[in-house]
């Protein structure tokens, strides 16, 4: 009998895994259960689409007929509602129950929402969010303001989009800075100053649950871009026995604690063999690579997931790159190269002497050196020695 692979989640991790499994196991049965109504598209392309750089059809990574061509049973607009790992079946929101031999959970996350979803509130997670945002832009009044809530990557996208359409923008932060759990004081100050110089108003220490926010949201002449984080619904896994922490726990093979149940993508809290701890990595590069590796493991090849992933953005010209493990809480050492005065800062994250992550602000040329350094489990030099001579050398060249 052919192997039955069931993939919950039709994003880049799940779809890549399906594509890889089809190559590895041509006669198998592959099912993708996807909450999305559309064939897979690139969320990363949504800002390009909103700006009119590409037509809407270019956001799609696969055509609708790709699924049938690949003999993949694609179920769009369907959610998993219950997982029984003992009898190996999953119940779906359309009432169907499907049995599996190997299950992949790649459900990603949902944007955290704010109050009611009134018309002028936008999230930038899905294609329909992008369509909705375009409608808001097209019907905006002359005195329209852009209100951004949040201090992460989605907030950056909104800042760029509002700037593109020449809409004055204010950003409301929960704390004092962008990426408050990641950036040290000086790099954080650098981002704030940069945004200030580029005409962005910052409002700090805002509680998005306050009643005055609720009142503000009624202002129909503003467009609200919300990027206050991601949350995941694990309720369908409650009785499955699958171990959940901040994400679905997995080892370096992306196997969960339950046999034949695997995970990949934003939802996976996997053991990262390079940095030596469990973590979630919510970026495209990681999700796609995990899709490939998890397919190999589901097929029966034992492959360790090993990648120094990164994510890059640009806020109004400020280049921002995150590499590897950038949790300040999990680091026992943080070091800074460069300064506000120099116009570029790299923040390094160390743990037990090893370099595990970095944030680069306007220091793109550090990227490869640092990525290789992390990959090779390089140790940070003693504090009294010159910090990573290669990086210092690199910064000298730029001067």
């Amino acid at each position, binding site marked *: 009998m052919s192997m039955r692979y069931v993939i919950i989640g039709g994003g880049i991790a799940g779809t890549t895994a399906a594509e890889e499994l089809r190559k590895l196991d041509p006669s198998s049965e592959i099912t993708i259960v996807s909450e999305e109504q559309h064939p897979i598209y690139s969320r990363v*392309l949504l800002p390009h689409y909103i700006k009119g750089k*590409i037509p809407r059809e270019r956001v799609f990574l696969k055509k609708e007929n790709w699924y049938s061509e690949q003999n993949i049973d694609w179920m769009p607009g369907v959610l998993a509602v219950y997982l029984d790992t003992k009898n190996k079946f999953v119940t779906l929101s359309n009432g169907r129950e499907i049995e599996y031999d190997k299950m992949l959970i790649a459900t990603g996350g949902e944007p955290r929402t704010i109050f009611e979803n009134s018309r002028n509130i936008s999230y930038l997670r899905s294609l329909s969010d992008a369509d909705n945002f375009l409608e808001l832009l097209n019907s905006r009044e002359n005195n329209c303001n852009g209100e951004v809530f949040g201090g992460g990557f989605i907030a950056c996208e909104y800042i760029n989009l509002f700037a593109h359409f020449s809409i004055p923008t204010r950003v409301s932060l929960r704390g004092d800075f962008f990426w408050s759990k990641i950036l040290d004081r000086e790099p954080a100050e650098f981002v704030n100053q940069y945004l200030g110089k580029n005409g962005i108003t910052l409002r700090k220490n805002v509680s998005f649950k306050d009643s005055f926010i609720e009142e503000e949201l009624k202002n129909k002449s503003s467009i609200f871009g919300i990027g206050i984080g991601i949350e995941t619904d694990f309720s369908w896994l409650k009785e499955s026995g699958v171990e959940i922490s901040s994400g679905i726990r997995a080892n370096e093979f992306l196997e969960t604690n339950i046999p034949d149940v695997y995970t990949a993508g934003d939802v996976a809290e996997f053991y990262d063999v390079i940095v030596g701890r469990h973590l979630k990595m919510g970026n495209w*590069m990681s999700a796609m690579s995990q899709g490939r590796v998890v397919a190999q493991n589901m097929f029966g090849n034992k492959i360790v997931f090993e990648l120094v992933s990164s994510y890059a953005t640009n806020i109004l010209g400020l280049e921002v790159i995150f590499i590897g493990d950038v949790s300040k809480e999990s680091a026992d050492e943080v070091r800074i190269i460069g300064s506000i005065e120099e116009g570029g800062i790299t923040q390094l994250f160390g743990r037990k002497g090893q370099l595990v992550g970095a944030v680069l602000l306007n220091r793109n040329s550090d990227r490869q050196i640092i990525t290789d350094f992390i990959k090779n489990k390089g140790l940070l030099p003693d504090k009294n020695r010159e910090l990573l001579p290669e990086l210092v050398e690199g910064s000298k060249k730029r001067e």
Partner: protein
Amino acid sequence: MKLRIKVDPDLCIGAASCVTVSPETFQLNDENKAVVLDHSQEPNGRTYERWIEVNDDEKENIFLAAQSCPTLAIFIFDEEGKQLFPEL
């Protein structure tokens, strides 16, 4: 066979997926955009576009790299100028 590989720097966001998949064909420049290499070499300097002679395995790897790009900023053409990826 020969392929023409082209990166659209306006679409490229420096996600570096292509560099991970095919480092001998793609690297990032100081603007954080992917440039095209010929078997890890850069004859005639840095460029967003070049012809490369490839075997079947190399071709497959370059296609994987192009597919891995979240903004589909990598274009592949054959010798007749036909666009092979992204499929039209």
